């Protein structure tokens, strides 16, 4: 029996086990939506902006490990997803973007709502394809899912001209896929693995530096085994949080620009770094020249381009984190390494660093400290919620003060740093796990970037709890302006803002406000008792800064812990400004 391209597309999705489709209709994808109208097996989530929908697909993918799928129309519908596509590419998130396209004979004619999506997204997708013939559709879909989810995962875009989805052919879904030009290697090189074990046996001050690859390859158990067998402390990247239990005694927390002092010091003074599924991002390494000067580096990554890109590895191992760690664990287990005694001095030193500069804040005023709000969210959720964040100070505080014990519970935009990611990502995760507690922690800047998705939350009955850490500033921008631009708060004051409680109510969402620290816990408890989406406006200290911090251009052992004290040049600048003087650099 012959089927239309639209029917084939939906059958392909079902074959791939897709049960949730984030979507927004438009002119050229009407044939597909017409098929969806009668479709029972696929739950269509109508987003209110395609960027939101694509972030939902990302949130869904990060929370489940399965690819998130979004269907949009051509032109603006498609271009609206580009930010999320770039986001997914940076953070290795498997999403499939199905874009409508004008009919093949009109392509290139500047037709209504035409955009060259394959051209626009070429640098920010793992792969993309324009399907020109309905007979190629099933194969293209099979390949899209295979490419998005294998190797280093990423976004794959399939562009679907209207005539292709209307044409008919016989449907046959390929059982397997073979792409001669694409075969990501999974197993690590045996010789290199043996070398890595030798390094572990020799090391006196080892650290495991674990990134998002541990989560992508579902290697958390293998990582835990390695850390516990060899007694090696673990620091996580922002993307790697949850890949190793945050409350585990061997956990050093996050490293990098706003990482813990002890994680950064441990990395800096280590003699062996075992990097697993991490890419030595600039927010991690600080000044590259002075990064971990005495460390030998074992770098395990499935993406060969990540190795030697920033830091030269002594033992490069290209392979899947789970496979490589399993092999490594067998070798390490057989070597009989790992007595607590061996690294006694190293652990003592780490404890000294841990006590020297703990993560702290001073909640003595009536007004809430932002860190206090996040601390309380951690407490009331017993550390067992899925947390999605936006980007900025609140994101770093969430990474610092929420201890993630479970994989795939921290959804954040790491590489691209996308404001507006948090709310839709939380909705995508909640859609996948209707019974889990899902929190969105956002700033008052980013929340309005995809606020329209509150409607999606209401329509889909997604009981996401949204906590706005409201300091009436673009906090991270303001912090940098304070520290590096003489407190010239250029365009970072966003004190003119909606009444978030009323805004929530207008959307049909419960709105709550905590003006002072004493209101924080009651508001959170009230929110948890409500069986539906809640938006909480936490008014916090306006000029709290996120510390510790590695200033841009500094090495990671050169951390700053508090605001500059005393009459520095910045205060003089302020005085000069008040006096109407001329400011010079």
């Amino acid at each position: 029996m012959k089927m239309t391209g639209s029917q084939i597309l939906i059958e392909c999705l079902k074959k791939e086990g897709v049960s949730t489709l984030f979507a927004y209709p438009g002119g050229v994808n009407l044939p597909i939506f017409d098929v969806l109208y009668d479709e029972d097996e696929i739950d269509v989530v109508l987003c209110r902006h395609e960027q939101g929908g694509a972030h939902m697909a990302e949130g869904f993918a990060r929370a489940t490990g399965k690819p998130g799928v979004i269907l949009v129309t051509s032109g603006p519908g498609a271009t609206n997803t580009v930010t999320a596509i770039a986001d997914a590419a940076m953070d290795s998130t498997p999403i499939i973007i199905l874009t409508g396209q004008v009919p093949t004979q009109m392509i290139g004619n500047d037709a209504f709502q035409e955009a060259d999506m394959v051209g626009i997204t070429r640098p920010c997708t793992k792969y993309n394809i324009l399907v020109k013939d309905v007979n190629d559709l099933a194969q293209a879909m099979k390949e899209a899912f295979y490419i998005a989810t294998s190797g280093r995962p990423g976004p794959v875009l399939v562009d679907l001209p209207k005539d292709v989805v209307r044409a008919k052919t016989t449907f046959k879904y390929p059982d397997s896929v073979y792409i001669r030009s694409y075969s990501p290697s999974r197993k690590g090189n045996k010789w290199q693995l043996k070398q890595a074990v030798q390094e572990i046996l020799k090391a006196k001050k080892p650290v495991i530096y674990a990134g998002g690859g541990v989560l992508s390859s579902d290697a958390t158990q293998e990582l835990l085994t390695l850390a516990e067998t060899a007694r090696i402390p673990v620091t996580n990247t922002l993307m790697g949080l949850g890949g190793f239990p945050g409350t585990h005694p061997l956990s050093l927390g996050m490293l990098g620009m706003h990482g813990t002092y002890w994680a950064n010091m441990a990395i800096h003074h280590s003699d062996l770094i075992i990097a697993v599924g991490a890419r030595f991002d600039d927010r991690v390494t600080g000044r590259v020249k002075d990064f971990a000067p005495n460390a030998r580096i074992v770098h395990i990554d499935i993406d060969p381009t990540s190795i030697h890109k920033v830091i030269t590895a002594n033992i490069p191992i290209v392979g899947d984190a789970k496979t490589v760690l399993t092999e490594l664990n067998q070798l390490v287990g057989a070597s009989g390494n790992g007595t607590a005694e061996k690294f006694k001095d190293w652990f003592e030193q780490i404890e000294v660093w841990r006590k020297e500069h703990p993560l702290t804040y001073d909640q003595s005023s009536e007004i809430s400290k932002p860190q206090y709000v996040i601390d309380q969210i951690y407490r009331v959720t017993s550390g067992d919620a899925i947390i999605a964040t936006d980007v900025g100070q609140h994101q770093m505080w969430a990474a610092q003060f929420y201890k993630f014990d479970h994989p795939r519970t921290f959804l954040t935009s790491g590489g691209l740093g996308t404001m507006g990611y948090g709310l839709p990502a939380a909705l995508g995760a909640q859609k996948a796990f209707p019974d889990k507690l899902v929190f969105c922690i956002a700033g008052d800047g980013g929340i309005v970037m995809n606020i329209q998705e509150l409607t999606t939350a209401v329509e889909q009955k997604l009981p996401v709890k949204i906590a706005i850490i409201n300091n009436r500033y673009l906090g991270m921008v303001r912090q940098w302006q304070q520290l590096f631009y003489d407190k010239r708060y250029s365009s970072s004051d966003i004190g003119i803002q909606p009444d978030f409680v009323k805004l929530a109510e207008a959307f049909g969402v419960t709105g709550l406000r905590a003006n002072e620290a004493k209101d924080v816990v009651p508001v959170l408890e009230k929110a948890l008792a409500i069986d539906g989406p809640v938006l909480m406006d936490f008014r916090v200290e306006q000029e709290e800064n996120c510390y510790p911090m590695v200033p841009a251009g500094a090495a990671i052992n050169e951390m700053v812990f508090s605001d500059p004290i005393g009459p520095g040049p910045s205060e003089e600048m302020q005085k000069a400004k008040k006096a109407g003087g001329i400011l010079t650099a």
Partner: protein
Amino acid sequence: MQHIVSVLVENKAGALSRISGLFSGRGFNIESLSVGPTLDSDISTMTIVTEGDDRIIEQITKQLNKLVDVIKVVDLTEKEYVERETALIKINARGEDRAEALRIVDIFRARVIDSTQNTYTIEMTGSVKKIQAIINLLKPLGIKSLSRTGRIAIARGDIRGASVREMTERRGVSA
């Protein structure tokens, strides 16, 4: 240092722009790029002349390999190879200049492939140095237009390069 990278790539729409986009997006240099079919009409071969230190060249070859449509990448500079470039050079050729032009053509073992009353079009194949040399000699006569293929290269003798036969022996994974 200059490197010649030979790339076997699926002959699909957009493959060339994926590769050129990779170079511009990551700030790599392209000195020249030439594309042509192989014995297998589904596969093209590209010869890219690029410049960079070892770290950059390593990234270039790895990034090229990472592209889904790229089948094989070989840095020929690490091997014994031969390279050629062809130039078509149209010059002013009037009066005595015509004889001078022919002498130069003869010296370089080039050929005149089109002749009019006022012009010669010369075909020259050789190494980049040779091409540059003939261009320098012809300049005083007046070069009206110049078209160069960019360099193409191939590994010498039995040295393994980016060949189609070798590629088909490779095994991929299926899922």
